């Protein structure tokens, strides 16, 4: 390789003297947007960019499947608050990104996906590895575009990053035909973008804030539902002040976890399908719901007509299309969560709700965390509770999708934002390991735990190789119950215990860890849990623990899909019945 003999291309704002290949301009534009890390996988149609890559101060992480590149970019974005970047070749590379892009769309995560495309001369001719990736991702991107000439590279990439991170964040895909990468040109200087159709409302309307304040003042049993928007807009401090001043309790959505400290006396923990009973009961009895940066997802509301039947609704969200989508909203407030809370704080004087708070406290029942079940088998909830205790709740925790996700959401009590990383809207299995990878790259100082199921981990465990290559401080905790547990739970409860295709086998994870050069242990008894967790924490770098747990444990409480709070099932009720 002749790397040393070539001159390092310049990335400054000074005008360039010589035209450069589009591939270089792409990387220069990325560097200019502050990109330090790309999760990607090479291939023919993106090869010129890979050819130029070694000359730029960008750390490229070679994943083992493009889906993981998108998930890792997502985890990176959630852990750092920056835009995550993934890159893939055309055709199969691009289509492999799709699940990760859809995930970022559903959860409002700023990622930019760069894809190579076949040369423009053969676009539309079913050329080798051609797919219409902008067509495919139309409904799952905030915006996507094809760069059609070398001059468009700078503006297109600037626009992509701006759109990804502003307003309601989301994924943006930039498709770059190979001929554009191979044409010489100049990088247009960064300039003001003229986007007449794009003007997110940041500062809410005063009149709506006053109307909201009026309802808040009059409410006797108010409740805040805090969602991901709190974390995205960095509104935690304002939310704490607002809750304290008004003495209004706060329930969190799955993605709102960490947006309000779990240890705060006003925190009710998670709401919704597997939310804490007292939190859901509070919704049921509330006379005012203040939804902030959340979207009344059906996993939160159950049957909308019976959700919070006695409550009026204030809904604060940056996306006007979310307001009134599910529930009749009395006061819509369009704007950034933090700005809205700031304005509300100006309007509202201290309030008291002692009776209401003590009523909610009286409903509280802890989630069960006994070490072992009937036959002395290890209980999964105990594992999460110990993980929380031993890491003092300070680790970054990513999860996959399923029962372990819900137990972690219930029991890993996060106190700060960007600590909890989980696939909410899409519920994409395979998310846990690669998102942990992204988080660990973005926050190298952090201890990262990926809590995953034996089903989900098998979707992306190829990334163990990436974790080991990069020597990431990722500890993988596999909660092995021998089932696609959450689906088995539904089969048990709603399909007459017909466990159709939910028992799932696993490889020997300890041997597998060794095969990937990843220190690994297996835990089968409660007495071994603490020691194993401490072992994994005793060194920097990858580690794997397989926790073999009670196979037929269920997540409770549970409000069945489309049900209401009245339909809640909890474990005390179940024990007698089954």
């Amino acid at each position, binding site marked *: 390789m002749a790397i040393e003999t070539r001159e390092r291309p310049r990335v400054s704002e000074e005008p360039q003297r010589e035209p450069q290949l589009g591939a270089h301009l792409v990387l220069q534009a990325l560097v200019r947007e502050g990109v330090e890390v790309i999760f990607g996988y090479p291939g023919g149609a993106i090869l010129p960019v890979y050819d130029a890559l070694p000359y730029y101060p960008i750390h490229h992480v070679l994943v083992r499947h493009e889906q993981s590149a998108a998930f890792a970019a997502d985890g990176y974005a959630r852990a750092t608050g920056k835009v995550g970047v993934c890159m893939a070749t055309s055709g199969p590379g691009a289509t492999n990104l799709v699940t990760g892009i859809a995930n970022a769309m559903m959860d409002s995560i700023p990622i930019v996906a760069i894809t190579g495309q076949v040369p423009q001369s053969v676009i539309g001719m079913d050329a080798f590895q051609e797919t219409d990736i902008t067509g495919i991702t139309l*409904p799952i991107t905030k915006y996507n575009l094809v760069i059609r000439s070398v001059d468009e590279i700078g503006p297109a990439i600037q626009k992509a990053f701006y759109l990804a991170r502003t307003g309601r964040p989301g994924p943006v895909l930039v498709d770059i035909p190979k001929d554009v990468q191979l044409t010489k040109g100049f990088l247009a200087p960064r300039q003001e973008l003229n986007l007449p159709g794009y003007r997110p409302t940041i500062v809410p309307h005063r009149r709506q804030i006053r109307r909201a304040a009026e309802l808040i003042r009059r409410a006797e049993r108010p409740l805040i539902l805090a969602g991901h928007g709190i974390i995205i807009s960095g509104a935690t401090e304002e939310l704490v002040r607002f809750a304290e001043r008004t003495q209004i309790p706060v329930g969190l959505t799955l993605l709102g976890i960490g947006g309000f400290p779990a240890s705060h006396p006003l925190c009710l923990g998670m709401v919704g399908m597997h939310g804490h009973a007292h939190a859901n009961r509070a919704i049921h009895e509330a006379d005012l719901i203040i939804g902030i940066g959340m979207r009344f997802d059906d996993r939160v509301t159950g049957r909308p007509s019976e959700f919070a039947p006695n409550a009026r609704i204030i809904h604060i969200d940056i996306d006007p299309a979310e307001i009134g989508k599910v529930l009749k909203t009395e006061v819509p407030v369009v704007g950034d969560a933090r700005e809205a809370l700031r304005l509300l704080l100006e309007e509202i004087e201290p309030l008291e709700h002692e009776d209401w708070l003590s009523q909610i406290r009286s409903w509280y029942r802890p989630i069960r965390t006994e070490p072992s079940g009937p036959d002395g088998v290890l209980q999964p909830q105990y594992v999460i509770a110990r993980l929380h205790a031993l890491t003092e709740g300070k680790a970054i925790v990513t999860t996959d999708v399923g029962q372990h996700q819900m137990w972690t959401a219930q029991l890993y009590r996060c106190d700060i934002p960007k600590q909890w990383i989980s696939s909410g809207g899409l519920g994409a299995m395979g998310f846990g390991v690669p998102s942990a990878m992204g988080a660990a790259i973005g926050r190298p100082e952090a201890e990262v735990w990926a809590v995953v199921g034996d089903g989900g981990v098998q979707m992306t465990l190829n990334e163990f190789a990436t974790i080991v290559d990069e020597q990431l401080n990722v500890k993988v905790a596999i909660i092995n119950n021998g089932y696609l547990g959450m689906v088995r739970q539904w089969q048990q409860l709603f399909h007459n215990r017909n466990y159709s295709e939910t028992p799932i086998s696993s490889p020997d994870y300890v041997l597998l860890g060794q095969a990937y050069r990843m220190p690994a242990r297996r835990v089968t008894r409660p007495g071994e849990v603490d020691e194993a967790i401490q072992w994994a924490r005793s060194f920097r770098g990858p580690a794997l623990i397989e926790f073999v747990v009670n196979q037929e444990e269920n997540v409770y409480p549970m409000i069945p899909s489309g049900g209401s709070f009245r339909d809640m099932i909890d474990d005390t009720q179940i024990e007698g019945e089954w």
Partner: protein
Amino acid sequence: MVTVRSHTLVVLVEDKPGVMNRIVSLFRQRGFNIDSIAVGHSETPGLSRITLVAQGDDRKIEQLVKQLYKILEVIKITDVTDDNPIQRELALIKVTATERNRSDIIRLVTDVYQARIVDATPDSLVIEVTGSPEKVDSLITMVRSYGIKEIARSGVIAMARGARVVAPAAQPVVA
């Protein structure tokens, strides 16, 4: 009560490739059937005006409008349904004509509907009609008995009456 009715939306968009696709795709994704869509240049260079007619209940259409606003190139959307807008459609209708009924058809079309005959052959006539969709429907009904060979309709275009215009906000916001 949810009442489904026909809504007429006037949408001002940037004239860029893929915009129509984004709009139509949004209707498809949300299960709306588009009755008519017509697009052409507007008074402002670089902007196109689309007239869209779709069925839906008011709440769903309102939701749809909010979603449409999320498309980057969409500048302005107005639901003109309740404004009694001027609505026009152009249609070309090719009918079978014989020696015997030719003059009947011509009289009907020109006297009653103020439409025009724009082409004639020994056994056919092409009628050009502009007007409200109802007028076009009515003409089609009337000539059906003669035998219709072909119909091409342009889709509806609409405009609010009086001084009201569907125009972009005065100040384009620069990011």
